[in-house]
Each structure stands twice: as structure tokens, then as C-alpha cells.
């Protein structure tokens, strides 16, 4: 028993990214509790996350990847795909921690718990992305979410933060309860909580169909809430606006990545049989209209915002719509198409992570104490006064817009071309996607127009860029990856393809 549970030492290697982040989180708690003055928690947390991310990136290539201990295997997949998600999550979380290091210090909000929350939430996200059991899905989801709720409400003196946090918490817990009820129904219908067992039972036709369909709908609703797809998006703008900007960054990249990761895994393992993956009767019938509505509403609502943070919130809703197109493509019975779609979604999320960090990071960089840049007016003329601080912003919005040769362009390209390759059934969705991204171009370009072509109103408060090595480092790193993934995407997409073929 002992040997089978623990396995050999080597079998723990694929779990190292997870363990490193967990141990790092506890180390942060201890350092924060025992040191009187402000220890460099930002450095510590980002180093831990980047180390875990780098390790996961190496493991994602398949080198040195061995099966995990048998006690872990039923609950967590630690193959190439999970390692790819780990790398993406750690990258997003590490960059958010760097941004926090600059932002919290500048705005006199520095308290140690923020970094511990980032690290523990990232741990939850990694568990969620690797989960192969309804139980580990729930634990990962809640570990991630509870940290994020606290991060949103972090600014104690701000009613907006408390309100954003409260709204997110209430709706998030409601969604989690719905997801849980769905999980319990699926367990009842199939007798299994492990995704593989559920999938087997669904394919064999042993499952109680009524319970199963209801459970599947509730489970998928809970997950699409986390990616903020329409109609479960109401919390997004409020939570994004109320939160401190590094927390917004974290939410927009890490939470979305983990939720899409588990959505892909649940669909591919449990619901890929012909009945439940049918475009008319199965989950694609629910997700396809959601994807269309998400793209349309996200883009049109973003175009109407005067606050840049709210605009980026709606833009993140719109991006969830584009990624959902890739998820819907999994209805296809063609293995080739499915792998292209999965790798497209993986690439998209990595590209979205670095692009969004770039946009939010620039927004942070353009403001300073008591002069935070939040509206378009705050940005007016900032590009001419401080070109170096505005340049990453331009790169970020271009990539979010999908302008070649940035990473964002290729992300959209891969996802949409997979949808087209699946046949004519999704053509309408791709057309909706392309047309709505034209609307997207309007509000992204508006940022550039304000940065370089407008002048501040006479007498208006002028935002002054902050100086912080942390923020500069985060911007340089994410900017580098936005360009590198756009110019030489081959290594990344190959990695995603090879991971997608294994589904581990």
C-alpha cells in the first residue's frame, strides 16, 4: 500500500510545479508573519511563481515526464497539457505579483497578504486546470475563487472594492453551488466522480440520461460563469473595476485560463460522445449561442465605456467569446480538428495572458499615487509626454485587437481556422466573431488615439507615470512574449499541439 501510494521519488517530479507553489505560499505566510518591516514579498512570490512556471514549461515538452504517484493519479492529471496550463497560470500569476509589487507600494496599500493570496489562488487555479475528478474540480475552483474574492475586496477603505468583492463573492458562490449540484447529479447518474469513469459510462449508455443532462448543464453553467460568458457575465465589470489593478490582472488572466482548461478537459473526457456533442441536442447547442452572445455583447458594451478598466473588463468578456468558439469546435468528430481546436485555445490563452498583462500593466504604469489613470481622459496626451510608458500600452491593445504580427492575432487565427476546418456548421459563429472584432478595433484604437492625438482638458488632473522596477520588468517580459509569440509562434503552437494530442 505504502509503495503504491507514494511511488518512487521520480514520480513526484511532475508534481513539482504544484508543490513548489504550495510550499512557496506557506513560506510567504511565515516570512510575512515573522518579519517586522516589509520584506520583499513581491520578489519572493514572483520568483516562486516563475520558477514553477519555468519548470512546468520544461515538463510540458514531455522531457522527464513520468506518471505521478498512484494516489495522486485519479485526482490530478500532470501530463503535458496540465504542465502547459501550469506554465500559463504561473506566468500570469507571476506577472501579476510583479505588477502588485509596483502598484501596492506606489498607492500605499502594501500588505503582505496580497502576495500570499496570489500564490494560493494560483495554486487553486493549477489544481483546477489539472483536475480529473469532480472533487478536485470543486476544491481547485474554490481555492482559486476564495483567494480572488479576497483580492477584489483588498482595498479596505474603498466602498467600490467592497461592493465589487461582495457582488463577485455572492454570484460566484451561487455559481459554485450550481456547479456542485450538477456534479452531484452526474455522480448519481453515472456512479463515478472521476472524469474518465463518467466518460466511459456516458459512452456505454449506462448513465441515467435525465440526471446526466441536467447535471451537465449545471456543471457547464458553473464553469462558464468563471470565464464570464454571457449571460453569466454580470459580475465582471463591477469586480474588475472595484479591484486593485494587479488583482484585476490576475482575475482576467489566471481565472480565465484555469476555467477554460477545466472546461476543455470535462468536455473532452466526459461529453465527447455523439449524443452529448451533437450540435443540436448536446452542449454545443448551449455553448454556441453563448459564444455568439458573449462576443457581441462584450464588444458592443466595451465600446460604450468611458473607464478604461471597465473597457478592459468587457474586452475580457469578448475574448471569452472568441475562446468559446474554439471550445464549441470540439463537437467535431474529426480527431485532427479537435486537436487543432484544443491547441488553438491553449495558444490563445497564453497569448491573452501576456497581452492583457501588458495592457493592465501599462495602465498601472501611467498612474501614480492619488493620480491613478482610469478613464480615457486620464490617458489624453500621455503618449506624447511619456512615450516609453505608453509604448507597451500600444503593443498590448494591438495584440488584444488581433493585429499582426502580435500574439493576439495568431491566437484568433488558430481558433477561428479550427472552427472553419470543422465544417460549415460553425461558419456563422466565425462570421460573428470577425464582425464583432471590428467593433473591438474601435475601442482598442481609441486608447491609442487618446494616448497620442488628444490633449488633456485645461485644468484637468494630469496622470503622472510611476517609477517602479517591478512594473518595468513585468512590461518588458510580457511585451517580449507578445512579440515573440507573434513573430515565431512555431515552438509554442507545436508544444500546444503535442500536449493536445495526449490530453494528460
Amino acid at each position, binding site marked *: 500500500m505504502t509503495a503504491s501510494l507514494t511511488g518512487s521519488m521520480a514520480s513526484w517530479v511532475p508534481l513539482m510545479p504544484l508543490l513548489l507553489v504550495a510550499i512557496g505560499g506557506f513560506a510567504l505566510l511565515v516570512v510575512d508573519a515573522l518579519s517586522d518591516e516589509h520584506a520583499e514579498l513581491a520578489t519572493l512570490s514572483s520568483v516562486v511563481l516563475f520558477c514553477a512556471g519555468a519548470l512546468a514549461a520544461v515538463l510540458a515538452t514531455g522531457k522527464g515526464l513520468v506518471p505521478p504517484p498512484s494516489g495522486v493519479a485519479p485526482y490530478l492529471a500532470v501530463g503535458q497539457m496540465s504542465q502547459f496550463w501550469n506554465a500559463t497560470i504561473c506566468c500570469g500569476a507571476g506577472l501579476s505579483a510583479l505588477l502588485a509589487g509596483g502598484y501596492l507600494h506606489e498607492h500605499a496599500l502594501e500588505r503582505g497578504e496580497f502576495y500570499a493570496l496570489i500564490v494560493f489562488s494560483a495554486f487553486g487555479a493549477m489544481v483546477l486546470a489539472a483536475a480529473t475528478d*469532480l*472533487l478536485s474540480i*470543486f*476544491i481547485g475552483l*474554490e481555492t482559486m475563487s*476564495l483567494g480572488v*474574492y*479576497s483580492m477584489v*475586496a483588498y482595498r*479596505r*477603505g*474603498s*466602498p*467600490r472594492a*467592497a*461592493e*465589487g*468583492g*461582495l*457582488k463577485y*463573492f*455572492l454570484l460566484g*458562490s*451561487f455559481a*459554485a*453551488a*450550481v456547479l*456542485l*449540484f450538477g*456534479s*452531484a*447529479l452526474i*455522480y*448519481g447518474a453515472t*456512479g*463515478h*466522480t472521476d472524469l474518465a469513469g463518467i466518460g466511459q459510462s456516458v459512452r456505454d449508455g449506462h448513465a441515467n440520461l435525465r440526471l446526466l443532462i441536467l447535471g451537465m448543464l449545471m456543471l457547464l453553467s458553473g464553469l462558464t460563469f468563471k470565464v464570464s460568458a454571457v449571460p453569466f457575465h454580470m459580475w465582471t*465589470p*463591477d469586480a474588475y*473595476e*472595484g479591484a486593485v489593478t494587479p488583482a484585476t490582472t490576475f482575475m482576467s488572466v489566471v481565472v480565465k485560463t484555469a476555467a477554460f482548461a477545466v472546461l476543455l478537459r470535462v468536455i473532452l473526457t466526459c461529453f465527447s460522445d455523439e449524443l452529448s456533442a451533437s450540435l443540436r441536442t448536446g452542449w454545443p447547442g448551449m455553448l454556441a449561442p453563448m459564444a455568439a452572445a458573449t462576443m457581441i455583447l462584450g464588444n458592443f458594451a466595451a465600446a460604450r465605456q468611458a473607464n478604461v478598466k471597465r473597457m478592459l473588463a468587457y474586452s475580457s468578456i469578448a475574448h471569452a467569446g472568441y475562446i468559446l468558439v474554439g471550445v464549441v469546435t470540439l463537437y467535431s468528430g474529426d480527431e485532427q480538428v479537435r486537436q487543432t481546436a484544443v491547441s488553438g485555445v491553449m495558444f490563445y490563452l497564453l497569448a491573452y495572458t501576456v497581452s492583457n498583462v501588458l495592457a493592465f500593466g501599462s495602465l498601472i504604469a501611467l498612474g501614480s499615487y492619488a493620480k491613478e489613470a482610469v478613464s480615457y481622459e486620464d490617458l489624453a496626451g500621455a503618449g506624447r509626454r511619456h512615450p516609453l510608458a505608453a509604448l507597451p500600452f500600444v503593443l498590448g491593445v494591438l495584440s488584444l485587437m488581433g493585429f499582426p504580427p502580435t500574439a493576439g492575432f495568431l491566437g484568433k487565427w488558430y481558433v477561428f481556422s479550427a472552427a472553419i476546418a470543422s465544417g460549415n456548421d460553425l461558419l456563422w459563429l466565425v462570421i460573428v466573431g470577425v464582425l464583432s472584432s471590428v467593433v473591438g478595433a474601435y475601442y482598442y484604437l481609441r486608447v491609442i488615439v487618446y494616448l497620442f492625438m488628444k490633449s488633456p482638458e485645461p485644468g484637468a488632473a494630469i496622470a503622472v507615470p510611476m517609477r517602479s522596477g517591478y512594473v518595468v520588468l513585468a512590461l518588458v517580459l510580457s511585451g517580449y512574449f507578445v512579440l515573440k509569440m507573434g513573430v515565431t509562434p512555431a515552438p509554442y503552437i507545436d508544444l500546444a499541439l503535442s500536449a493536445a494530442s495526449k490530453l494528460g
Partner: protein
Amino acid sequence: MQIELGHYLSLSAIVFGIGAVGFLVRRNVLVQLMSIELMLNSVNLMLVAFNRYMPDNHAGQLFAFFVIAIAAAEAAVGLAIVISMFRLRKTVHSDRADTLRH
């Protein structure tokens, strides 16, 4: 009358429904929190009931343990956020938390 799986499921669904309706209808945050607890506990009932009729393993009961623990953590975080809002706005009504709309 024999108490069967269907009865447990009906009870669980009713409790979940009461929780869901309570959450959506009531505007007092504390009542909404209680409604969420109700929903989570209805799931526990269902998990344990399913496990009773599918006794090959203890997956359902195991699940219920974790739900209990996580519900407590969730309540702690939720109440902390409610307190932080109450200190600033002097209200526990989610309708009056509307600064962000303006």
C-alpha cells in the same frame, strides 16, 4: 412506506430550490449567505443519498466532507467581505451596494 432514493432526491431538490429562490429574492446579504449554505447542504444530502444506493466506494461521502470544509471557508471569506462593506456603507442590503453603477 419505504424511504427510497427518489425521496432523498426530491427533498434535496426542494431544499436547493428554496436556497436558490431565497438567494435570488432576498436582498439581505446575510440571508443570501444562508441561502447559499442551504444550497450546499442540499448537495451534501444528495451526495450521501446517492452513495447509500451505490455503495461500491465512498466517493459521495468523501465529496460531502470536502463540501462541508469548503463551505466553512467560504462563509468566513463572505462574512469578512460583508463586514468590510458594512463598515463603509452601513448596510447589509445588496441592492444598496450600487456605487459602481454610477
